């Protein structure tokens, strides 16, 4: 009995010893890499991070595994604080979204400066659409949507992923634009938001395409308008807000960043790794099917500049709609 158990263990130890003995020249991870996701499971960021993690393993891009860890607490505050505290750690990277900017702006006492993090690579720009349940026969386009919201008033429920998250910013922008007031209900992730729309616990969402795609294909939800510059290939029949004369264009950045003070060698390793993922057929196919824009990967210091610009833009945006409109206080 004992021998039967010992043998595989011995074999495993042997294999492990071989891996450890392999010579390392350029910087490489020496232990599993924490792949932090600043959002809940099933959401866009989560899906992307888990796809990337799988591709890293499949292509053998890292000698040590990437372990995805969700830290959705406080609209990304938990994850941001965590990464900040990991300053100088070379074995942690984070999949970010726009709350990377908005949460530190809304919560200055968090003590996090996102421009101080180590920029690695911008994997994609994600898009937003306005979704309702297909059973809402009275809503066929943006006009009828606005009419329905206005006649329902404050009890119209919009689901999102947390006050201060990008969907709450977009919801506040729409409130300002159309002159209505809705109730914004936070859920722990984009996937749960999508599910609650289908279960009719909420009336509308501004989900990313990947979060609603399965339900959309099954005919349970319908998009009314897309908040992009041009119509996406995945949704050729859905008008953009601009076409309808509404000046809302809003994107979500999906970039990978390390903690402040990551060593140059490690940053380079991750930059190369994510560049390879970005160029892969699997990633580009995912971008096309899920309506992401992935033309070139902005990396390193260029991404740092991109963050600085976006940070200022979000500061302005939040000032415009008012932080209180976003947090609902």
């Amino acid at each position, binding site marked *: 009995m004992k021998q039967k158990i010992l043998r595989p263990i011995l074999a495993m130890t042997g294999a492990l010893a071989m891996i450890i003995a392999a010579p390392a020249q350029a910087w490489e991870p020496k232990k599993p890499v924490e792949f932090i996701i600043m959002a809940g499971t099933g959401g866009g960021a989560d*899906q992307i991070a*888990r796809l990337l993690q799988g591709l890293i393993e499949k292509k053998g891009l890292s000698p040590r595994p990437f*372990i995805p860890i969700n830290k959705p607490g406080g609209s990304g505050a938990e994850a941001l604080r965590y990464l900040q505290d990991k300053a100088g750690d070379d074995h942690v990277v984070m999949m970010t979204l726009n709350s990377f900017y908005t949460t530190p702006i809304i919560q200055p006492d968090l003590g996090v400066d996102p421009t101080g993090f180590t920029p690695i690579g911008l994997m994609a720009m994600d898009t937003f659409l306005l979704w309702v349940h297909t059973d809402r026969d009275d809503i066929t386009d943006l006009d009828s949507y606005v009419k329905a919201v206005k006649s329902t008033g404050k009890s119209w429920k919009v689901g999102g992923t947390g006050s201060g998250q990008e969907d709450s910013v977009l919801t506040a922008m729409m409130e300002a634009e159309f002159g209505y007031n809705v109730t914004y209900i*936070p859920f722990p992730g984009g*996937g749960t938001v999508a599910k609650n729309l289908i279960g009719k616990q909420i009336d509308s969402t501004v989900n990313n395409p990947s979060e609603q795609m399965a*339900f959309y294909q099954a005919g349970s939800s319908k998009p009314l308008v897309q908040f992009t510059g041009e119509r996406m290939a995945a949704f050729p029949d859905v008008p953009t807000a601009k076409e309808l004369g509404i000046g809302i264009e809003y994107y979500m950045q999906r970039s990978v960043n390390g903690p402040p003070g990551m060593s140059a060698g490690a940053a380079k390793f991750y930059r190369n790794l994510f560049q390879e993922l970005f160029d892969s057929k699997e990633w580009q196919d995912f971008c096309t099917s899920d309506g992401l824009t992935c033309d070139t990967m902005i990396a390193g210091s260029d991404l740092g500049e991109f963050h600085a610009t976006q940070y200022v833009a979000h500061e302005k945006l939040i000032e415009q709609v008012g932080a209180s409109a976003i947090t609902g206080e």
Partner: protein
Amino acid sequence: MVEIADLLAAGLLQSFEPLNFAMILAGCMAGLFIGAMPGLGSVNGVAILLPVTFLVPPTAAIIFLAALYYGAMYGGAISSITLGIPGASTAVATVFDGRPMAQKGKANQAMMAAAIASFIGGTISIILFTLFAPPLAEVALKFGPQEEFALMILAFATFIGLGGDDIPKTIFSILLGLVMAAVGFDIISGKPRLIFFDLVEFQRGIGFLVLAIGIYGIGEMLWTLEQTGGKVKLDYVKTTWAEFKKHLGQIKAYLPTTSLGSALGFFVGTLPAAGATPASLMAYGLAKTFSKDPDSFGKGNIAGVAAPEAANNAASTGSMLPMITLGIPGSPTTAILLGGMIIWGLRPGPLLFANNPDFVWGLIGSMYVANFVTVALNLALIPLFVRVLAMPFTILTPIIFILCFVGVFATTDRMFDVWLMLALGLGGYLLRKLNYPVAPAVLAIVLGPLAERSMRQSLIGSQGDVTTFISISEHPISLGCIVIAVMLMLYPVWSNYRRKLANRSTL
């Protein structure tokens, strides 16, 4: 119905293909060991072994990972019972009665009960899954914040409900757990709250495993040391075939709670965001509430081992349901499985059943087989596992202390949590000395955040109207749960009253 039978038969055949069957064996075996290691649970196991699955076709891959998930549920019970440290968060409730049983020299009985209850739980839920997956997905969709909150209240009620435990002390313990659950970021506004001594580390909250390992690992050890002065002699019984046969005769004793735990576990598992840990705790509470002898719970009642073990296995199957039918994971482990499915080129969601029947039915078929494999494997290994108890106490205790340290550090990767575990362990020991039940605090720290979120979501949605939870037209399920919860909470008052009446009449 005939169609389901056909598809299932094809699925079963598929799981007996050499590669798939090998995957089941490997997965169950790996899961058993990963589950048994404190600090390593199904989440880590599935994440670490995900890359292995890129070498085989998607169906074999999911079969491997699902078997591993399963195996880990069985394995978690091993260290819970023999060492008194939960092997995984899903096995915390197993410690409540498993550990006392081991101390009474009934470790092998507890392990057999755990294995058999797990088997029953897994089998009941896979049958439910096979027959009712699409309609159950509809029910899961109907579960909004109000319903979730009502379910949580029900869970708390089962813990307050009846028992030899002092009710005010139970409530105190629950409140203590809720306070600890509230530490960290506010889940709605994202602002930090209850940051003790302004320590930044508290912003990340108090981890549930940190508390559980502290209380049950450290606290329990201190208590045992004090009670026995280190001269403890654990009875170590050889596991024999005759004993197993005797055990089979006892199954009756825990069959009702096991069935109840299985059904509850499966259902809780299907709800997105809940998972196997709350399910096992709720099943424990329920088993205790409906027991004829609630006083014996926490002191080595075999039903207290069977119920949570049945529930966590049932929940692990249940949590596959929203993943497959809705594309939303029902537990942290299925979240990782979901990632795997995307890479294998599948899109989980309402269309998966129609577009990839081979995959779905292969998985379902494999779950039946995996259940048999794991229970056989587990029963066969019991003699080996209980050997741990043959070690002298003076050697076992330091090992347990070390495993507590390793377990906490491996889960959270922070020394702060290790110190916190020690402090909580000391606190748990004091509570124990003062006769406070600690299990309710563990329950509260798991369910607290879920209850808080769903309550606040409901109240935001209803514009602060509390009656939303009991609105018969809008939330009948929620109303039903709350009515049952209130009845459970009042039950002890009622039975006390009756007991008093009976006493008076006999006097």
